[in-house]
């Protein structure tokens, strides 16, 4: 570093304060340069959290809060604990079982417990006999190993787990935002950070899975297969049999009857906590071919896939015991309060050509909503509505909303509901159509769509929001008394929901 002090003679020693100031300035310049480099490196890395991060946050917040730190309490407890610790350590050492140990073959094991599989895969063997086969390039972290199991995080790739069924066995495998709880079984797990996709394939035994789009843990039994794409709001379970070919090669879904009534298919999923039955609308014939795949809505006991208004076979609220509504007979609802308002487009033609997936959801997620709308228009809006798959249609609807094209969004939602009835996208479309109507002041339309959503997906991801918004609309349009039963239902179902205060205020008549 150059010294540019002009007035100091070479033979005069530099003053201590001057030297310190010069060194401090040099230090500051040095850390400033390094700080700039650090910022540049940070900025050059991919930005932003993963799409699943919000879902994980929502789930984390929904879980009961851990006890807050209480210094005073600890101050009293710590001395006692210290005094007893020395006396108990020796005993505990003899009594407590040893934590499991493990070794790795064919891969790299970091001291932190991270296993990185080699090009031919690798095997992790625990001292209780549990074995994990990692596919090539897969990464697994053993974050905590106890005497009866371990907590594992599959960071990338696929792995085959064969967990020994032993008394008190407790294993957990984290894959992205999902957690697979295991007591003893054999199964495969795959996690792709890039695709934001989790897959669990059961070979024997059972596991319980929790994560986004699941309001409670779902049990998977032998042979079942879970596929979750939380960023797209898509979660499916099937029984692991080969796909039955769909008519147009697209995602299997319930088929509309000639009268427009549909029965949402439910796969035979023994052991899973899925709704056991489907109720067919009285006026419509039951669809014979039940597709194998279906979106899951845990805790739903009965489901009715509603048809669009004006078509046929609409169910009245009194027909749907799963979703009791106290305000359905209110005047001004326009007849059947469960039937959503008309959609802006008629039924599509039956012969829809194969759609080349455009992955619009990723483009929308990256903020490129305008380009998605442009792309759809270049393909042709009508053709898009007829041919696009469920994911692209839902993405187009989102893109249209964000691009300020509500009419296009409504068309896309309408097409989603007509072409993929019973799918998670169709259910979400009902809620979003309701919110669009609600936000533009169409309380009746909003109310009917919210009710439709709640009837179709009573435990769906938007159930709390739909019920809360329904409560507010009813309160606004029909008064507190009419909204009171909804408030009570809301508090019962969502005691920590975001409309908690409004519901309590209604009940307390404040």
């Amino acid at each position, binding site marked *: 570093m150059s010294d540019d002090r002009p007035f100091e003679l070479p033979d005069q020693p530099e003053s201590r304060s001057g030297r310190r100031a010069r060194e401090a300035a040099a*230090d500051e310049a040095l850390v400033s*340069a390094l700080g700039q480099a650090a910022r540049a490196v940070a900025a050059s890395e991919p930005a932003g959290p993963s799409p699943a991060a919000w879902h994980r946050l929502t789930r984390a917040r929904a879980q009961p809060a851990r006890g807050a730190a209480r210094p005073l309490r600890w101050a009293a407890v710590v001395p006692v604990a210290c005094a007893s610790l020395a006396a108990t350590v020796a005993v505990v050492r003899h009594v407590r079982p040893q934590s499991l140990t493990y070794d790795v073959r064919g891969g790299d094991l970091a001291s932190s417990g991270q296993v990185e599989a080699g090009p031919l895969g690798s095997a992790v063997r625990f001292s209780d006999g549990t074995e994990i086969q990692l596919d090539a390039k897969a990464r697994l972290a053993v974050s905590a190993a106890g005497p009866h199991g371990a907590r594992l995080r599959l960071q990338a790739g696929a792995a085959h787990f064969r967990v020994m069924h032993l008394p008190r066995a407790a294993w957990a495998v984290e894959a992205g935002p999902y957690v697979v709880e295991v007591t003893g079984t054999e199964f495969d797990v795959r996690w792709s950070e890039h695709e934001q996709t989790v897959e669990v394939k059961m070979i024997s035994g059972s596991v319980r899975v929790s994560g986004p789009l699941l309001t409670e843990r779902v049990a998977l039994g032998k042979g079942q297969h879970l596929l979750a794409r939380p960023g797209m709001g898509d979660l499916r379970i099937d029984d692991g049999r080969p796909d039955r070919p769909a008519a147009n090669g697209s995602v299997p879904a319930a088929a509309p009857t000639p009268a427009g009534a549909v029965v949402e298919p439910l796969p035979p999923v023994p052991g899973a906590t899925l709704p056991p039955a489907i109720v067919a609308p009285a006026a419509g014939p039951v669809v014979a071919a039940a597709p194998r795949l279906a979106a899951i809505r845990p805790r739903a006991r009965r489901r009715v896939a509603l048809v669009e208004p004006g078509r046929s076979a609409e169910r009245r609220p009194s027909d749907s015991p799963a979703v009791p509504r106290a305000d359905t007979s209110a005047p001004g609802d326009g007849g059947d309060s469960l039937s959503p308002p008309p959609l802006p487009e008629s039924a599509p033609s039956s012969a829809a050509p194969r759609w080349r997936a455009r992955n619009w959801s990723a483009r929308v997620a990256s903020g490129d909503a305008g380009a998605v709308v442009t792309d759809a228009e270049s393909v042709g809006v009508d053709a898009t509505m007829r041919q696009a798959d469920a994911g692209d249609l839902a993405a187009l609807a989102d893109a249209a909303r964000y691009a300020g094209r509500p009419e296009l969004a409504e068309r896309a939602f309408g097409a989603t509901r007509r072409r993929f009835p019973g799918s998670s996208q169709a259910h979400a479309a009902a809620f979003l159509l309701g919110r669009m109507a609600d936000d533009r002041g169409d309380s009746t339309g909003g109310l009917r769509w919210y009710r439709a959503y709640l009837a179709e997906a009573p435990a769906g991801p938007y159930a709390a929001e739909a019920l809360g918004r329904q409560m507010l609309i009813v309160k606004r349009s029909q008064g507190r008394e009419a909204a009171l039963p909804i408030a009570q239902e809301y508090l019962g179902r969502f005691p920590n929901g975001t409309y908690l205060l409004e519901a309590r205020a209604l009940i307390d008549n404040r």
Partner: protein
Amino acid sequence: MTASPLRVLRGEVTDFDTDEGLVAGLRRGDARAELAAWNRFSARVDATLRRLLGPGQDPQAREDLLQEVFIRFFARVGTLRVAAAVGGFLTGITVHVVHGELARRRRRSWLRLTSTGVTPDIASPPPCAEAREAVLRYYQKLEVLSPKDRSIFVARTIEGLTLAEVASVHGLSVSTAQRRLLRATRKVSLLVRRDPALAGFADGGRAEGRGA
């Protein structure tokens, strides 16, 4: 930023475009406001976490911290007095969370739960191998500082907070924060100058060119 941040595409944000509207919605517990806050701030907080923690961190671990930041933010937003300060409020929480994480890592290191107490790095292709390697070594040098000193140092020299902000976030007086910052700067500079791999930065003139 080289890429647009991913956002959760739900909800209308028109009511929450302003700080006042957003904070009012958050105080009401409006889920749409929370989603709007996430869409608006999550990428920024994530970037702050990257800078505070350094390169090569486990993305999952960083996402856990991001969650922690927002959980605290939603829980404490009621204490925010000036809505316009919501950005700084969030940055303060982020610094606190990182400080806690570093202290936890140090405790883990002391307990020998890992060899270094540092979350294992996930290999990822560096944008510029030389600069990234240098920055990685630089962050390793910072491990000699106590968690609080490191937090103060990084918040000031990398995150770019003002001295007053650094003092406020860490609950210190400005003079104390300055004293600790100077001490940390001196210690880190000494270590950097002794490291041949970081010699280029010590030359000063070439420093800026290496960062990009």
